[in-house]
């Protein structure tokens, strides 16, 4: 379990990092290394060059304002998770982050790294899609913003080009009248979930005016389903069953050694009801309508 030989560069500026990438078509970017390093050690990946971006300046920020949360490429999950302003502006971010692996991994792993690793079993890509966030990338031609809806193109595949570096992620703020919830079921505490669901529900009074849910581990790429129509304004048992049925239409769970496709579909059904209900309650609480 030792990596194959590779060259290593540790640029001090973004420009140098982009040049290093441009010069080495088989280069890989190293940030937190929590996915890449095990792949290297098992020789499942053997890039010719590692471009370590940990010395790049001004990329470890976590900023929250009225628009939303901006997370720099070098901000660790643990930093984002403990930021009170993030929790206030977009509470779904910490709710999901608390389920990302274990504290030691969250101490090193970067949120932006996880987003562009594009694992459909990971929490943050799904949350980014659910919230309609985006990722800013720098490339040879300058900066561009990739909306979450265009970021994920296949299993472990993002729409970043090889010569681009993701520099910042943006999670929009929670809107007025909205609430969020997150729940996942994993074989062990901190493992990749067999299924996970997050929801954003917006209410007017007691009535649901919009509801969307995101799903982990039950599709090739992070999945988001609009449940507004299925719920038809309510979160009673009938509405929740209809919502789960609507979600299953859009999902494609598979069998692996930890869970069958049927079981994952069942979990998606159970969690849809739990999470939509919790998000609905959260929305009403935030709107001051709780009892």
């Amino acid at each position: 379990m030792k990596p194959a030989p590779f060259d290593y560069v540790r640029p001090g500026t973004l420009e140098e990092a982009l040049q290093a990438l441009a010069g080495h078509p088989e280069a890989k970017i190293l940030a937190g290394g929590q996915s890449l390093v095990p792949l290297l050690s098992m020789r499942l990946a053997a890039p010719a060059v590692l471009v370590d971006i940990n010395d790049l300046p001004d990329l470890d920020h976590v900023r929250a304002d009225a628009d939303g949360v901006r997370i720099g490429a070098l901000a660790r999950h643990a930093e984002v998770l403990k930021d009170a302003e993030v929790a206030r502006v977009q509470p779904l971010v910490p709710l999901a982050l608390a389920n990302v692996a274990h504290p030691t991994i969250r101490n090193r792993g970067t949120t932006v790294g996880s987003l562009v690793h594009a694992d459909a079993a990971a929490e943050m890509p799904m949350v980014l899609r659910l919230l309609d966030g985006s990722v800013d990338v720098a490339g040879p031609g300058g900066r561009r913003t990739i909306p979450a809806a265009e970021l994920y193109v296949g299993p472990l595949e993002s729409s970043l080009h090889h010569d681009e570096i993701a520099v910042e992620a943006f999670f929009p703020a929670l809107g007025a009248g909205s609430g969020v919830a997150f729940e996942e079921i994993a074989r062990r505490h901190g493992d990749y979930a067999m299924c996970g669901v997050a929801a954003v529900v917006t209410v007017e009074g007691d009535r649901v005016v919009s509801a969307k849910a995101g799903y982990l581990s039950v599709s090739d790429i992070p999945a988001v389903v609009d449940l507004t129509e299925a719920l038809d304004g309510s979160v009673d048992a009938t509405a929740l069953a209809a919502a789960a049925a609507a979600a299953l239409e859009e999902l494609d769970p598979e069998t692996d050694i930890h869970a069958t496709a049927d079981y994952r579909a069942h979990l998606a059904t159970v969690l849809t009801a739990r999470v939509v209900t919790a998000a609905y309650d959260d929305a009403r609480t935030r709107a001051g309508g709780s009892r």
Partner: protein
Amino acid sequence: MTTKMMGAKVQRVEDDRLVRGTGRYVDDVALDALHTAVLRSPHAHARILSIDVDAVLDVEGVHAVWTYDDLEGAMAEPLPLLIPHPTLTHGRTQYALAKDEVNYVGEAIAFVVADDRYVAEDALARIVVEYEPLPAVVGLEAARTAANLVHDDVPGNVGARMEQSNGDAAAAIAAAPHTLSLDLKIERSACMPMEGRGTVARWDPDQGRLQVWTSTQTSTGVRAAVAAKLGLDLGQVDVITPDVGGGFGVKIVHPWPEELLVPLAAQKLGRAVKFTEDRREHFISSAHERAQEHHVEVGFDDEGRVLGLDVRFWHDHGAYTPYGLIVPIITSTQLLGPYKPGAYHVQFDSLYTNTVIVTPYRGAGRPQGCFVMERTMDAIAAALGKDRADVRAVNFIQPDEFPYEQGLIFQDGRELTYDSGDYPAMLDKIKELVDWDGFESFRAAKAAEGKRVGLGLACYVEGTGVGPYEGAHVHIETSGKVKVATGLTSQGQGHQTAFAQIVADELGVRFEDVEITTGDTRRMAYAVGTFASRAAVMSGSAIHLAAKRTKEKALRIAADALEADVDDLEIVDGVVSVKGTDSSIPLGTIAVLSNPLRYAFDEASKAATQFNVGDPTKPPVAEDDEPGLEGTDFYSPPRSTFASGMHAVIVETDVETAEIRILKYAVVHDCGHLINPMIVEGQIHGGVAQGVGGALYERMAYDESGQLLNASFMDFLMPYVTEVPTSIEIDHLETPSPLNPLGIKGAGEAGVIPGSAAFAAAIEDAERSALPSFGITAMPISPSELFALRAVHASSEESK
């Protein structure tokens, strides 16, 4: 008298060092060593047509690359079959490097020595092997069907068929008022110590000696194997076992291919050479355990008393049988647990498959036997509508029936005779600990909250402390410090602490003054090893006897020096004194006197000059004496001593998600007299954690081509601390063993044995409150499988 150490909750003295990261493991030895890597078969079954290593020779930093063709003499013979048995008619072992054929993914094919492990792994990638893939035999059904054979010359894939009986079980079942039959199954798991295998060797050309450090459970075994395979005299080989990061059974297997190839490379290259196994290698090239399928026929009376029990089972022993039939023999005999069936018959087939070898893993065949017996007890209770504890109670061996002969031959070739125990008292304790009688009201309260809970109980008996012997050497130095050596190894059990407690009590010295050395063949050349819950019983007893011998000598010399009678002496804190007087002599001074040297080196020697010992008309060292304050002794029992225990667990099975949550776990344990209750409880905690793993998480996911799909800690699910019960309630019973001087029994494996049996019972109990036909016949069980089982039973109940 000093405070008695035996039975005291003494804090482990090892932990400060181990927890702070200053332990010294094999990989910490010889930092100048060359490193090695092994090319392993990617096929479960294939013929090797050719191996081309030419491309490796050009790699900078490579010192050697070997295949089978490079091996000579005994090294070119198959590895030893350590424990032959007359019924193991078709035993097979692998070669150190594969010859012509590979029989599991992971089998060693080529060996590279290089400057470091990185270069060694780079070199492996350049070796070109041409294979002719053969059909793989994976799983017991494929082995039994034998459409394909693992070894061409082993018909039916049957390595061994063994049968034992006590009475006429078939006749007893035929005549019984009630009968049941069950088909039961347990899957594969593995020991998974934190530290994998590892070996370092250094050849000293000046002395013509080989020094080997290896992460093993038997340094004397490795020493003998290395000497035999390398053609060296035993006296030329030292084997030292430093700190070992867990064994759990896998490291009793020896010699591993690398345990021979590393010393050979050290000798040939004249350099220190090291092999440090990585985790993926550990999954595919060490050992697994557990996989068995059982068919049970049982006949019983109206009270649930078992009149006849007939068990036929199939044991998957993997591709080779280096450790013989120990695991299935233990299953077939220890299955009986604390019970006395009217008649018993058991027959097993031990079958080859193209998978990693199967050798003892903590519990060693007992978890399977316990699962089968306890599922049978639960099935009898259900059939009769009786309380599950009551059915067990009517089948117990009673306290006045010891020694109790089960009428079978145990794994050590001796009769299966239980030495002591009190199972009814133990059942009372476990029922109280888990509130057995109050459970139905707890269940009702939970049901009112919409929750589903269940209670399970499982009982076991464990033969521990198997022979043939262990020895100990006790040496009191002139400083008064006591140096003790015993030959078996330590892999984290706390031997320094527990053995020092025994010595402190027997010798009357301070606990802190006792130093224990284990697993170093330079200090104790005669030893067997640490397995079968035997270290405390075997080495503990030997140390006690050696300390006693040393004490006798000390008192004899002290009596002479103090001009007193031996019976008037006592030893407190390392000082011998005449009771009731201030006449005394420290043990260190006695050590000086015991060695009639003419030179005085130090203050201790000078201090001794005030005493006169010996008769000036006789030789300074008497004919039947020897110099030095030392004692050596050995302990060799007639047979194993039988520990026992009962576990009870309460689970909640999530009505919606089928997740399984542990609400309470209770253990009653009897290992005779306790040396250190804190260590025993630690052993129980660790065992229960592994039991949770075996019951709810761990399995080896082989696909049909023999590839292990989950050969990493990401997909092989050992429980984290978050999956283990937050508290384990423990109560002890102490029925001393009459077979050894301390009255102790083994405690190392016990905690893991009843795990799968207890969880199966608890989950079944929970589910039956909703689905009366629900039954569990296979373990482990995951939430996904529980969900599927619910669906099967729900549809079968609908169709009624």
